[in-house]
């Protein structure tokens, strides 16, 4: 049994004295505005109060009810990635000055958050090769949806063309966001090697004007896209190229999309030190060319000078935002993913220039090794030939869900069954490899797949 009042400093005596000092006889007098018959008269079946010891036991039991194998034996990705995280990251974001502060509306006493977000924006610009970044969106999927709305605001065509290699959940979220505004979303297909087909894109763009061509790079199946050609195709048709990046660690090794012609990058930042945490909280990345500045959604931090000429930082361009513009705002977003953006910034700062490249190189090399090892297993087939970053598709001799279940019992999480998104592909498995998967674990996975 816990003390239901332990987070409220006021004692019963404090309550009495405070009521007396404001001339009230009881707490109930303060709630006269709520009609009496609306007041709760019964127990609602909500658990608690519990002591900390009991709470920990209760939630600890939940944690133990999950059964995940050793990290080296997990080959799950598909939009959420495990990477090495320096211990200092969690230590620093646990400083109460960061995590228990609000959106920095009052810059004079929020410079810590504001400067960290200015640095975050800079890091994202450097990473993506684009000119501007905001201070985060909710996640990769909603960031992509908002990126498309942003492009549509600037060049309204009521139509966007999207690759079928984009994460299925990103496409679903985009459909939800575009639906009510009546913007049409048309899919285009891929080539035999697994990459988005520029000719198919060209045909869709020629059929009817569209504001954006949308691809994912590396794509949902791990393949590296031909961003330059796709940018050319988009620009030839007067459309912007929007590149979704679900695995930003890849940009430590791969050309910046901005340098390849991308106009907008919308991505997921979870890979940068944010725990997979059953799907969230993560953070959306959104970077673009300067032409999109005034139509960008979300918080943006800018440099400013104080009355004494000192450098500082403020939330800026707020006339785009809902609290000023209301229904004419560029988005309804208010709270973003501040602490997750801080996590990503600290991660990038610590891993640094050489570390991010090394992490990405290891992902690439280990994935190449795993792909060769599994590709040579009898009964397994690699449907796509294009180079991949840290995940690849394997066609199995048995339904992927069954294989995942069998290997899970042996302490391996073999990958993501693609049939969850496309019933026709029930034998395909998306296998993800990062620097945390050891050669021994990869060899074991290949052996087990060979023994099916």
């Amino acid at each position, binding site marked *: 049994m816990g003390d239901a009042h332990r*987070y409220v400093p006021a004692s019963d005596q404090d309550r009495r004295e405070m009521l007396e000092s404001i001339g009230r006889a009881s707490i109930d007098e303060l709630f*006269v505005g709520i009609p009496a018959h609306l007041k709760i008269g019964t127990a609602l079946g909500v658990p608690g109060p519990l002591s900390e010891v009991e709470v920990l036991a209760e939630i600890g039991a*939940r944690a133990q009810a999950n059964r995940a194998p050793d990290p080296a034996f997990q080959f799950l990705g598909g939009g959420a990635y495990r990477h090495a995280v320096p211990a200092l990251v969690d230590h620093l974001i646990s400083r109460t000055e960061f995590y228990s502060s609000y959106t920095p509306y009052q810059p004079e006493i929020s410079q810590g958050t504001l400067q960290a977000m*200015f640095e975050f924006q800079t890091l994202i610009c450097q990473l993506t090769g684009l000119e501007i970044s905001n201070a985060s969106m909710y996640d990769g999927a909603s960031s992509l949806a908002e990126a498309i709305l942003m492009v549509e605001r600037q060049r309204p065509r009521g139509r966007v063309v999207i690759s079928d290699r984009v*994460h299925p959940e990103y496409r679903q979220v985009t459909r939800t966001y575009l639906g009510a505004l009546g913007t049409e979303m048309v899919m285009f297909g891929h080539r035999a090697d697994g990459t988005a087909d520029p000719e198919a894109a060209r045909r869709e763009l020629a059929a009817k004007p569209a504001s954006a061509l949308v691809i994912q790079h590396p794509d949902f199946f791990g393949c590296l896209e031909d961003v330059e050609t796709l940018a050319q195709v988009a620009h030839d048709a007067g459309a912007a190229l929007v590149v979704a990046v679900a695995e930003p660690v890849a940009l430590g090794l791969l050309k910046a999309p901005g340098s390849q012609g991308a106009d907008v990058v919308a991505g997921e930042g979870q890979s940068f030190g944010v725990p997979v945490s*059953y799907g969230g*909280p993560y953070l959306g990345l959104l970077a673009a060319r300067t032409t999109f500045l005034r139509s960008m959604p979300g918080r943006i931090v800018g440099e*400013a000078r104080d009355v004494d000429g000192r450098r500082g930082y403020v939330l800026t361009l707020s006339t785009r935002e809902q609290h000023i513009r209301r229904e004419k705002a560029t988005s*309804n977003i208010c709270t973003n993913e501040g602490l997750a953006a801080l996590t990503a910034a600290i991660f990038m700062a610590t891993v640094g*220039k050489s570390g991010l490249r090394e992490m990405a190189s290891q992902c690439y090399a280990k994935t190449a090794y795993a792909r060769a090892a599994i590709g040579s297993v009898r009964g397994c087939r690699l449907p796509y030939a294009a180079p991949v970053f840290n995940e690849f598709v394997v066609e199995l001799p048995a339904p992927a869900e069954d294989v995942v279940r069998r290997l899970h019992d042996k302490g391996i999480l073999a990958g993501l069954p693609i049939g969850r998104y496309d019933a026709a592909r029930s034998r395909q498995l998306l296998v993800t490899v990062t620097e945390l998967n050891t050669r021994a674990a990869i060899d074991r996975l290949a052996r087990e797949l060979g023994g099916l």
Partner: protein
Amino acid sequence: MEPRSLKAAERLLFEISRPGRRGFALPALDVPPAEPPARHLRDDLEGFPELSEVDVVRHYTRLSRLNYAIDLGLYPLGSCTMKYNPKINEKTARLEGLADAHPHLPSAAAQGCLGLMHDLERALAALCGMDRFTLQPAAGAQGELVGILMARAFHVDRGKARQVVLIPDSAHGTNPASAHIAGYRVEQVPSNAAGRVDLAALRERMTGEVAVLMLTNPNTLGVFESDIEEIARIVHAKGGLLYMDGANLNAFVGIARPGDMGVDVHHLNLHKTFSTPHGGGGPGAGPVGVRKDLVPYLPVPTVEKEGERYVLRHEAPKSIGRVRSFYGNFGMMVRAWTYILALGQEGLRRNAEMAVLNANYIRHHLAGTYDLPYDAPSLHEVVFSDRRQQEAGVHTLDIAKRLMDYGFHPPTIYFPLIVKGALMIEPTESEPREELDLFIAAMRAIDEEARRDPALVRTAPHTTPVRRLDEVAAARQPVLRWTPVS
């Protein structure tokens, strides 16, 4: 270089970077090296920092000291509910097994996560008197969008989407912005002299084209919409739905339930009522509750219990779809669930009581000093204006900035828009009386300063790491990233 002092500005990451420094190492590569084809390969991460571990730790520790935080004292931002964030919440969210649970775990391996989500949903439904909740929205504003999209799907199912969403003039800006993205035209409903919805105006505007009335309750003046049942009747009589913005639920959680008031859809903010930290601007979480008729439209996937097993259900033909990848901000759900377990219904009710008592304590002791434009009973927050101080040429912004010199974060200012020069104060239940007394004393002292030495107030703050920043110039010529000095 600026000499070192505790108020010294911290240089940017990119300015303290030194070539060749490293703060990170991986195990040696245990497979043959491989590289992508040259056409994909990047030369260099131009400009990316090179720092040691010590450099990084000092940089962010110094930055942290430039922030105000709830653990330092009262943070009275109205409608933001800056309450204490219990430390146990941070511990449970980081438990191995939860923090490292991958979202693509087979459901048999994720029973702990799914069970927690299931139980949290049921507890929120019980506390709010709704039939179901979705936990997917990542923040309150995304919850609003989900709520309005569900209302839209409800109307489409019954023939047509309708065209209008009605919103009171005291509402948060996210309400009209969310309604707009959901494809609706926004029309305003004025407030009456008591600061509540003007029923006559509502009746007039409530036509068969109105899909939804979005109502914040208690509203942004901190006043309970005591006509809420009549409001629900007016809306329902024309076939509309009543949406409640639950941003201010902390005022009556455990005391009354939206579902009993005729509310059809509402969101709440786990980062307000349920104590998950604001993190300098998120992450939040904005669960949305619905009554039975709207259950078919909930976003997918939903968490269901089948016998003793928890499963994710992706098939729902009438669902509005997804608004976020995976299942939402799970880590925030763990924190909120921890909080509910710790407090129970009784503790949550106690929170609401103390939040309201604290607000009324501030109101009572400042009403003689600051103008109170609406004298309807306050619940969790009180809205003053700068009308009296204006006589001395001192405005709300000045009062807010001067509060910093007294060691407080300012209240929400210039909102709600229906109060000119608004100072919107929400103390929450987390403050002891001594802290409120200090705040009241500071507000009175500022009022005296406004008369005696207005320039002192108008040029505040004087003691912060930076002083007033030129936001106009910052927006006119935006510098939004660091670039190397050429």
